[in-house]
């Protein structure tokens, strides 16, 4: 993408007599390779081997009358005329003084984000890694007697550059790698990071997944329904618990009174969760999927605590809502692997299994919940019981409660799961078995 031409156009453009007084551009150029498997069919019509090339520029334009325009210039759009694109941006301008912020130069941290092997895969070269992943999954499918398996693998190489009218000019080059797999349409697992994982770890994760899927093929001992100690798998913790917390920490939701947490509660550092719960974002960790050097607005990455000792510290704030709430902007969470949820002392998995009535591996319907209430009422079709026994098998049920109540419960324990960055949670919860 020709950034110099775009900047020149911004300097010259006068749509409807208005001039651009300040601007910020975040240009991202991406190459991607992806491959899928649908019900055992490798690279079929629905998940073909795929290469894609994209380039776009996220923009903030502050006009000389104070209005702002925010959006994305796509490469195809710019190819049809830069002046036209800028004029279209002007038609979508509006008054938003809080959003009219363009950052200047700053110090940016060095963060390891790029892996040459992933970059080659993203270009559609060195496809042997995709082949190894396929072969191992197929081997496990045969060995465990699964009828089908599905999965996807993706590698991306991206170059990002931010330039602003106030002299900020910073670049980052990074890769992203992810895969997911499931056997016989049952429980799925996967991995994502900025680099390929070592092969032994890939084998280990796939084997763990196959073992769990095999357990789900046999019936488990159905527990009596009621308020039971349940062990929420890290996937469920991320989707349900962290998802609810993040939605209520969102600066826009806080500013508009749509979140469970009010702005005054942050000012008072109100205690909203149990006193040993901390939620921290660390985007500086090397080669994590959620790591980065700067946000799309040009804010340097740094560690930040949203909740400490059960007390609210800060909402998640971009520049606009930071100004509106009179607080400092924060880095933004990009993936769960850079979020650290701390809940007192962590319990070993075997000990937690001994205490739980059921392990909840997955839930259906989280996206239908209202995060402001924290209430949840979900289907849990993939649970294991009895959790501590070798002979654990599948049970199905419904799970109900309130996320905030869970995180205030005296009995709540964090549980370490192998290969996971997020802990599982052992907590009493309403579980009703389904036939």
């Amino acid at each position, binding site marked *: 993408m020709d950034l110099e031409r775009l900047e020149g156009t911004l300097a010259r453009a006068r749509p409807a007599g208005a001039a651009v007084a300040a601007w910020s551009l975040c240009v991202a150029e991406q190459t991607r390779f992806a491959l899928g498997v649908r019900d055992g*069919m490798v*690279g079929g019509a629905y998940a073909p081997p*795929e290469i894609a090339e*994209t380039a776009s520029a996220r923009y903030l334009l502050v006009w000389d009358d104070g209005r702002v325009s925010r959006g994305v210039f796509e490469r195809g759009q710019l190819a049809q005329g830069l002046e036209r694109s800028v004029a279209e941006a002007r*038609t979508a301008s509006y008054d938003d003084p809080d959003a009219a912020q363009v950052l200047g130069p700053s110090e940016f941290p060095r963060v390891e984000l790029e892996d040459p092997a992933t970059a080659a895969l993203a270009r559609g070269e060195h496809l042997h890694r995709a082949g190894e992943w396929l072969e191992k999954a197929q081997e496990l499918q045969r060995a465990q007697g699964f009828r089908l398996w599905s999965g996807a693998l993706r590698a991306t190489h991206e170059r990002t550059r931010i330039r602003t009218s106030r002299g900020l000019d910073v670049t980052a080059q990074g890769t992203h790698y992810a895969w997911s797999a499931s056997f016989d349409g049952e429980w799925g697992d996967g991995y994502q990071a900025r680099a390929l994982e070592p092969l032994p770890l890939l084998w280990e994760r796939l084997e763990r997944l196959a073992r769990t899927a095999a357990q789900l093929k046999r019936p488990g001992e159905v527990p009596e329904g009621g308020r039971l100690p349940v062990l929420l798998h890290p996937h469920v913790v991320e989707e349900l618990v962290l998802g609810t917390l993040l939605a209520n920490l969102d600066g826009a939701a806080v500013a*508009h009174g749509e979140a469970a947490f009010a702005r005054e509660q942050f000012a008072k550092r109100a205690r909203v969760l149990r006193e040993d719960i901390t939620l921290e974002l660390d985007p500086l960790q090397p080669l994590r999927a959620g790591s980065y050097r700067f946000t799309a607005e040009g804010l340097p990455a740094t560690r930040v605590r949203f909740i400490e000792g059960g007390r609210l510290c800060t909402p998640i704030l971009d520049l606009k809502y930071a100004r509106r709430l009179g607080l400092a902007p924060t880095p933004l969470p990009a993936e769960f692997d850079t979020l650290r949820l701390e809940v007192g002392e962590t319990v070993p998995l075997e000990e937690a299994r001994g205490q739980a009535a059921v392990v909840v591996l997955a839930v*259906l319907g989280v996206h239908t919940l209202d995060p402001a209430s924290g209430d949840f009422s979900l289907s849990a079709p993939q649970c294991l019981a009895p959790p501590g026994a070798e002979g654990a098998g599948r049970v199905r049920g419904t799970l109900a409660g309130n996320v905030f109540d869970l995180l205030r419960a005296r009995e709540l324990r964090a549980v370490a799961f192998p290969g996971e960055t997020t802990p599982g949670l052992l907590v009493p919860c309403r579980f009703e078995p*389904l036939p």
Partner: protein
Amino acid sequence: MIEELERAEVDHLARRLLDRAAGRGVHLIWRAQSCGSWSALVRGGRIERVAASRFSGHALWIAEGSGRTAFASRDDFEPEAAERLLDRLIENVLPEARLRGSPLPPTTLAPEQARLVPDTAARFAGLDLEAVRLRLLELERICTAGAPKVRLRLAFGAELDSWRIQRSDGSDVRFSIPRCSLRLVATAGRDGGKHSVGAAVASPDPGLLWQDQALDLFFRRARHAVALAQALPDAPHHPAGVFPTVIDYALAKGLAHEAFGHAAEADGLRSSVLAREGRFRVGDRVGAEHVSIVDEPLEGDHAWQPFSPNGVRRRRTVIVERGRLRQALADAWSAAAAGVENTGAERAESYRCPPLPRMSNIRIEVATPLPAPGDFEDYDAEALRERLAAEGILRRHPRLAFLSGYSGGQVNTTRGDFVFQCKAIYELSQRGVRLFKPAIFAGSMFGALEAIREAFGPLCLDAIGTCGKWGQRVPSSGGSHYFLVLDPHPSFRLGGN
């Protein structure tokens, strides 16, 4: 927008790519998209976002004679870059031995020449975002009048989505899909006890914000959402269990979409509960004899799509006819293997995504529905209770759980487990009406369809949503009669406390 795809340069590009593919011995489906979108958001009485954007690009989908495929996309129409992509597909990706899985030869497609651009598409050129912004603020003030403690989010979105598909067999199909929506989310309650409730209307016309009929409907729905958001924080939790249930048409759309629609998509029939050894179980009984499920593109509807991204005309699909499976939602690559006809059911979020069989407007139809005079919005819980009492339903079931409004759902097609969430639950009984907080409705699809006993009112098919199958988001819609009554059945239950 469609004009961008009909420029001479784009014609020339498509020709070059088709010729090049033919020279290399591969079949090519070339698909291009140009999509313009306009949106504005009012939150808490102020404009929070206005946006206008356009994206365009094209995708190359190649297949060898054996049926093996590869896919590439790029977000401009630069000819040399496109040719390089095609060459990389043919030279690097297609020959990789370990990626060559089991091929699936497509059903033969009939060549097609078509152009379908609705009249409303022309009106997008006159869309004035400044006027939209002011109008949205005005509508928000009307909605908040009398409800000062309710926080409102009001969003307008308009999209003109144009496609052009050319194939090696000479097909050339062009179409545009206009869609606009006005959505509201009302949030009320105290700290630690807030609830949000949504309402929406849709139209293909970008003048939606000035259409009296649409706005009347929107205000009725908005008033209901505001009142519900205010009432829910103080409402108790409904007990969990198995109950006789009434669902409205929006929830019925959820049931049809989540429980049956996804399981009838032919790309997933190798593992679907509606198939045996990969073949659709045509003729098998899956529900009550007076119940049918139909999917079809309806012009002007939010999920309308006249052609697939492979250039195949989309057809009406009767998934369940009088309780028995009849047709699957199939495309060229799934139809033969599933033993069904190709209904042109594939859709794609954008040119960047491989098309997948999926729904458009799906509905549950019940033979001989009972009357429900007036509009759906005329029926609050009390009016529904009276209607049920008049038809003797309350004698059969002295207490029913009325699940009102749809907040989304999910399904596991392998086992037929479905779940969906309502906006509120009302207990309807001889004594009156009692409001409860929302809870999930979960269970087995067969039990739910078997349990449908009565329907009230005419078909109402404007329940809109977004379907996220395999990470691709496309608009969805559908409905049913105003209300469906389900007898209690052990295979599905309400969540709650």
